[in-house]
C-alpha cells in the first residue's frame, strides 16, 4: 500500500509544485517507487518543472474518464529510476475531476507505488479539496508572510475536518515546509522567523527552504532543484526528504551569511 502525501498551501505561488517535484524526486533517488500527480487541472505546470512536457500524451483526466489507462498516462522519468509523473489535463472543465474517479486512480496506483505525491492547485476549491481528500500525510507549504500563514492555517483546518481520514476520526499527519526563507530579512526584523511561524501554526517543522536563485535556474532547465547538489535549496530539500524518512538532520540555511563590507554599509 502506498502512502499518499498531499502538497498543499491555500495561497498560490508559494512553492507547492517546486516542493512536489523535489520531494518526489528525492524519494525516488532513495529507492522508493514514487509517482507525482498534478491536480492543477487547466493550469498544468508540474510537467515543465519535471522537464517532461513534450512527453505528455494522456493525462490524469483521460484516465479518470477511461480514455486511457494508467500505463499509457504515466510518464517514466528518464533521469531517475522509480520516478513517474501523471500530468494534469489542460481542459477548462471544472468538473473533470470527481471524488470517485480520483479515488479509483489512487487505489490502482497504491498497488504499485510506495509513495503518491499530490501537487495541489492553489485555493480551496474542488481541485484542492480532491488533492487533500485521500491523503495520509500533508506537506503544508508556507512562506514567511502574513497571507500565506493565514491560508496555511485554514488549510490545516480543512485537513482536520474535511478529508477522508478526518471523517473516519483519524488524522492526517501534517508537516510544515517553510519556503522562500530569507535569513537576512529575518535578521532585519522584516520577515517572520521560522520560530514565529512554527509558534503560530503549531505544526511539526519538516524543513526550511531558502529563497534561492537556484530554484529559477533549475525550473528553466526542467530539473527538480533537489537534483542540483550544489544548490542551497536543493540541499535543503534533500534534508526534508531524509527527515521525512526518519533521519535526524539539523536545520540548515537559517542564519544570514556574513555580508561583505559594501553590503554592510548600504544594508541592502
Amino acid at each position, binding site marked *: 500500500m502506498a502512502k499518499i502525501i498531499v502538497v498543499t498551501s491555500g495561497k498560490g505561488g508559494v512553492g507547492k509544485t517546486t516542493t512536489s517535484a523535489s520531494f518526489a524526486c528525492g524519494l525516488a533517488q532513495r529507492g522508493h517507487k514514487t509517482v507525482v500527480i498534478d491536480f492543477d487541472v487547466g493550469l498544468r505546470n508540474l510537467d515543465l518543472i519535471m522537464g517532461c512536457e513534450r512527453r505528455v500524451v494522456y493525462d490524469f483526466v483521460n484516465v479518470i474518464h477511461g480514455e486511457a489507462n494508467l500505463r499509457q498516462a504515466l510518464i517514466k522519468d528518464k533521469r531517475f529510476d522509480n520516478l513517474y509523473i501523471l500530468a494534469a489535463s489542460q481542459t477548462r472543465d471544472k468538473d473533470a475531476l470527481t471524488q470517485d474517479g480520483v479515488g479509483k486512480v489512487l487505489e490502482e496506483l497504491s498497488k504499485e507505488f510506495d509513495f503518491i505525491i499530490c501537487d495541489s492547485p492553489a485555493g480551496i476549491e474542488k481541485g484542492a479539496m480532491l488533492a487533500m481528500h485521500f491523503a495520509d500525510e500533508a506537506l503544508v507549504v508556507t512562506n514567511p*508572510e*502574513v497571507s500565506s*500563514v*493565514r491560508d496555511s*492555517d*485554514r488549510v490545516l*483546518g480543512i485537513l*482536520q*475536518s474535511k478529508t477522508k481520514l*478526518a*471523517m*473516519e*476520526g483519524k488524522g492526517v499527519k501534517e508537516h510544515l515546509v517553510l519556503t522562500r526563507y530569507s535569513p537576512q530579512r*529575518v535578521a*532585519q*526584523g*522584516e*520577515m*517572520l*522567523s521560522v520560530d*514565529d511561524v512554527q*509558534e*503560530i*501554526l503549531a505544526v511539526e517543522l519538516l524543513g526550511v527552504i531558502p529563497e534561492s536563485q537556484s530554484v529559477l535556474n533549475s525550473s528553466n532547465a526542467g530539473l527538480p532543484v533537489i537534483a542540483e547538489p550544489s544548490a542551497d535549496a536543493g540541499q535543503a530539500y534533500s534534508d526534508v526528504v531524509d527527515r521525512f524518512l526518519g533521519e535526524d538532520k539539523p536545520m540548515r540555511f537559517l542564519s544570514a551569511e556574513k555580508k561583505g563590507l559594501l553590503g*554592510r*554599509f*548600504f*544594508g*541592502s
Partner: protein
Amino acid sequence: MGLLDLFRANEKKSASVAKERLQLIVAHRRAGNMQAPVFLPKLQEDLLQVIRKYVQVSDDAVKIDVERDGDMDVLELNIVVPDNRD
C-alpha cells in the same frame, strides 16, 4: 545594520507586528473550529463499545455534547444504563 536602518531603529519591527496579528487570527479560527469536533461520532461509538464490555446498553445510550463556556469547551457525557436493582 545599514545606514538607513539607523533611522528606523525605534520603530517596531514589521515582523513582530505580523506575528501578533497572525496569532490572533489563528486563535480565532481554531476556537471556532472547536465547536463541533469531528471526532465526536467516533468517540461516541468507542464509548459505547467500552461500556458494553460491562453492561448491555442500547445504541442510543451515549449522548455527547460540547458547550462553550467562556474560553473553555466543556464535553458533556450522558450515559443511560439499565436499572438492575431488583
